[in-house]
């Protein structure tokens, strides 16, 4: 009886911790923005031509926007006190990062369902993972508040890469969706970003 009550209490405490963590990172706002991105993608795909530069660039822009917003949620409003006292912080960071990345993929995949998405769902998964990894890496270096700079700066580089057919796999959006090199590069970036944000968090190295 006592053990069961203790287990239940522990579970409640865990849930409360998760809820508080999610509230402090504005996860709900992030989910709303991701839903808005999905609506934007669906609207764009309805109007866009099925091929050509716009059919590639506008979905990519929406994916980069979704990744940027996920990166911003890595910012901690508490800083060092939370870092010193939060024993479960790395797990919470990992869980939140993975959950939001999955939510973004699910939302954008749902937004592009029954529409023609250039590159398909596989391309969406690769590009979104890469963008999200860049957002996490930027957040770990510049701080969560500036995590958006990475994916949106990378997006700016992909624009000429798409139009001028650059071939390096590190610019994965310019490669076909089944390209192994591009998938490996995007996966590596995502894994590195996830590891960084889990271990280090999105620490703000400078305050401006």
């Amino acid at each position: 009886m006592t053990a069961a009550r203790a287990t239940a209490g522990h579970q409640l405490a865990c849930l409360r911790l998760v809820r508080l963590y999610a509230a402090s990172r504005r996860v709900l706002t992030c989910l709303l923005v991701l839903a808005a991105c999905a609506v934007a993608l669906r609207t764009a795909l309805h109007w866009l031509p099925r091929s050509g530069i716009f059919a590639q660039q506008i979905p990519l822009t929406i994916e980069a926007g979704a990744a940027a917003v996920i990166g911003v949620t890595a910012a901690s409003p508490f800083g060092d006190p939370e870092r010193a006292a939060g024993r479960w912080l790395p797990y919470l960071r990992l869980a939140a990062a993975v959950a939001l990345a999955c939510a973004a993929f699910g939302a954008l995949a749902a937004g592009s369902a029954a529409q023609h998405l250039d590159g398909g769902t596989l391309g969406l998964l690769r590009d979104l993972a890469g963008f999200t990894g860049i957002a996490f890496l930027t957040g770990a270096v510049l701080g969560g508040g500036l995590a958006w700079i990475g994916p949106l700066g990378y997006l700016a580089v992909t624009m000429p890469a798409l139009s001028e057919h650059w071939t390096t796999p590190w610019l994965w959006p310019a490669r076909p969706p089944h390209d192994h090199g591009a998938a490996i590069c995007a996966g590596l970036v995502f894994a590195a970003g996830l590891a960084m944000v889990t271990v280090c968090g999105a620490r703000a190295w400078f305050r401006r």
Partner: protein
Amino acid sequence: MTATVPAAPAAPAARARAHRVTLPGPARLLRLELRRSIMPWLAPLFAVLFWLVTYHPAMANQPLWNIRSGIVPSHTMLAFAPLLAGAAAWAGSRERRRSMADLVGMTALPRWAGQLAAWAATTCWAEAIYLAGVAAVFVVTAHEHAWGGPLWWPVAVGAAFVAASCALGFAAGTLLPSPFTPPLAAFVMFLALAGGAFAIQDNVRYAQIWPLNVQGPFPLDSYGIFYPYVPDLAIAQAVFLAGLSAAALGTLGLPAAAGGRWLRRAAAVVTAAGLAAAGTGVALAGTARLEAHGMVIPALHDAASDRAIAYTPVCSHAAVPVCVHPAYRAFLTDVTAAHGPALSQLAGLPGAPVRVTQVAVTSVKPDPSNGIAFGGPIVSGRPPVLYLPLAGSSLPGEGSTSAAEFTDFLRQLDGRWIISVVVGLSGQDSELGGAGGNVVPLASPRNAAQVAVVEGLANALGLTQPSARSAGKTPGSRMPVSGAGTSVNPPGNGTPSITNQVRAAAQRFASLPSGARHAWLITHLTALRAGRITLGEIP
């Protein structure tokens, strides 16, 4: 008895303070904001972006001022504008982010003035980064001895776009302070740029205001060389961007916390004036029309832009000299090589061009999807001169175009047409040819001999069929001219017996030695042009 006490030497810090120039209040505030801005930290990112997005593509092109001056603002701002909007939104939301809104709200300085100082600091850094990039490209171009000088209007539009991006982002960050505002401001700016590009490709009339649109559908190398750059569209864009900036910044002064009553009234006036200017810019852009040397807005047009720029052409020393604009001096050899074989076959014949002169364009017409079709070369004057436009052709070094591809492209594109003109087929085709149409007239008994002669000459010179030509690599946007009329009819067109006879005559003529062909043409060209030669009379 008095004792003099020597004055104590001033401390170094005090001496430094005494020498420091005391700036007026706004300048001190701006200096503080410049030191606190995030932009210096982002400068390396912008430098890398500039190198990848602008410098690299600009340097991959030929050192022509019009190409480089067009690439710099359009490519740069495509990458910079969203990030600048995000960075400015970050700066605008600083007070709320640092929980200082109440603290600074009770200072003597009106909040609007403080916000304008923060925006000005962000914009100053952004302009400095942008102009440093422009300077880098222009200095390198000047060292490559490009003819003429930079086109400053596109650069000015880029600078206005920098200010507008910062103003819009700053207003978003100030009015909607949230951690999500900077990425959303950047994201919306990206989408707005993409939407503008989509609208302009969809031929939406007012979409010409899109700030990355340098000269409507004109390729970068097709203006600003023979005639001055037509700044009409750039002026409308600058008015639009200045209006947007004023409206966004004016909005910041409207809330009650921004300042006193008079300040808020001034902000309302600035906002209204900004909106009016932006609307005027859009309305002006809606009246833009395509003309030979650029996009003309009647209300803004200056007739001085229509006067040609004086220059001394650079000519080759071939039998038929080829003269190009000095800006195209590097391509003289390629152009001469492209047209030399056809011209040497025709040299000395009545009606054959005695000189080739490069011109800006012969004709332009709008195409769907914000496209443009340039007319091909024309032969006119006494003695006949071939006026050759190169606008719209991908020059050697542009993208992946090699000198050999450029030469082959020109040869295939214009070779047949030049021959057609000389043998008299152009009379029916010249209008279409001038407009850049790709028309294949049928061989009829009336012109069968002319078609056979042109076909024979084209075969001898290795000029391909028009269908093969259009299916092959055609660098550039210039349309093939109607010299295609000299080809043997495609299957299903015309009478098969005539087609076969024309083909046989063409093969006979092509197999002749070059000198024999030329001699026969000198003797029979007048009769051939008059339609008095039959297929059987072709040797």
